[in-house]
């Protein structure tokens, strides 16, 4: 029975990590938009190339933040959470 419970914990952690990374869609769309607009801007005004590139990289970095939050949650779920949860379970069972 205990093995089943631990198996459910591990599986749920892995599933949760996978679901957390769905958040990667958002930054992908956002950064794609940013780069597309930057390309348009450079095409229209090639002399502003360096400034546009710098601003775009800044914007991309800020847009990436939500994706990185999801990444951190996923990494915590994979590497940290299973051990903690199994400990809690074992304590609750009393072993």
């Amino acid at each position, binding site marked *: 029975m205990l093995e089943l419970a631990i198996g459910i914990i591990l599986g749920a952690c892995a599933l949760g990590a996978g679901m957390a990374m769905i958040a990667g869609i958002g930054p992908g769309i956002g950064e794609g938009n940013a780069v597309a607009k930057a390309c348009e801007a450079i095409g229209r005004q090639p002399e502003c190339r360096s400034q546009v590139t710098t601003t775009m990289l800044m914007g991309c970095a800020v847009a990436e933040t939500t994706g*990185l939050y999801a990444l*951190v949650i996923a*990494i915590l779920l994979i590497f940290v959470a299973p051990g903690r949860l199994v400990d809690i379970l074992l304590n609750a069972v009393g072993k």
Partner: protein
Amino acid sequence: MKKSNGQFKFVDCLLILMMLLPIAAGILLKVLTTPQKEGIVIEGAMIYCKIPFPVMPILITETQVNSWLIIISIIGLALYLTHGIRAGVETKRQYLAEWIVESCQKMVGSNMGGYFAGFAPFITAMLGLSAFSSLMSLTGLFPPTSDLNTTAGWAVLTFILITYYKMKCGPLVYLKSFADPPALTPLNIISEVATPISMAFRHYGNVLSGSVISVLVAAGLGGLSQTLLGKLPGFFGEFPFLRIGLPAVLSVYFDVFSGLLQAYIFAMLTMLYVAGAFPEEEYFKRHPKKGNA
């Protein structure tokens, strides 16, 4: 112009040694202390020793050791670039040192304005430390920036600076800045706290995700190679041929490009936040004398 064509002196050798020895020492330490492992694993910084302390023991981890090695290495680099500098002497390293100083001063001046011109050394130090920390993964060592504690420490430093410059006109102006539109006060407080958290997580997450993806790709290619070529006899069956090539390309992106970009972004955000936190008009209204400086 005096003797300028790259005469190598004893001091130069010493300083270059000071630059390279820490990295070599780090590799040696890692080789000596890391236990043999089966396959490829992803794990955090190794703990070298614990110092007993009242509340909780202080851990001396790989992150701290590597950070100090990088600091010593950067001091060596800076001394090598700048020692014996004279006006009118044209050596390559003097050009390099002048280029670094001038471009950083220009960057700080254009992003923060004249009042913050004294910030150039701080920003340059942060940029260099962050960039070299991320580049350390090229030598196979644990990059300190892929530990949340390092980046969180830098972010806390930025947060202290932001708060200090917001307090420049006294605590009342500081408190009033939160209630700018009064209805949004809670949101303003949350965004104030979120600034250092997001800065720390951004840098840490980028470096860490790079190393995780590299390890996963390397492991996957090794497995694929074993399935495809494992039947071949002898050396051809054992050597993971598919692992040649693609991980190196990924490393160029994740270790070099992403690390340098994150260093630049961290320094840039520090500049923008600190400069944006300073209530310039209010301050110069109260201290008209300093406005000329």
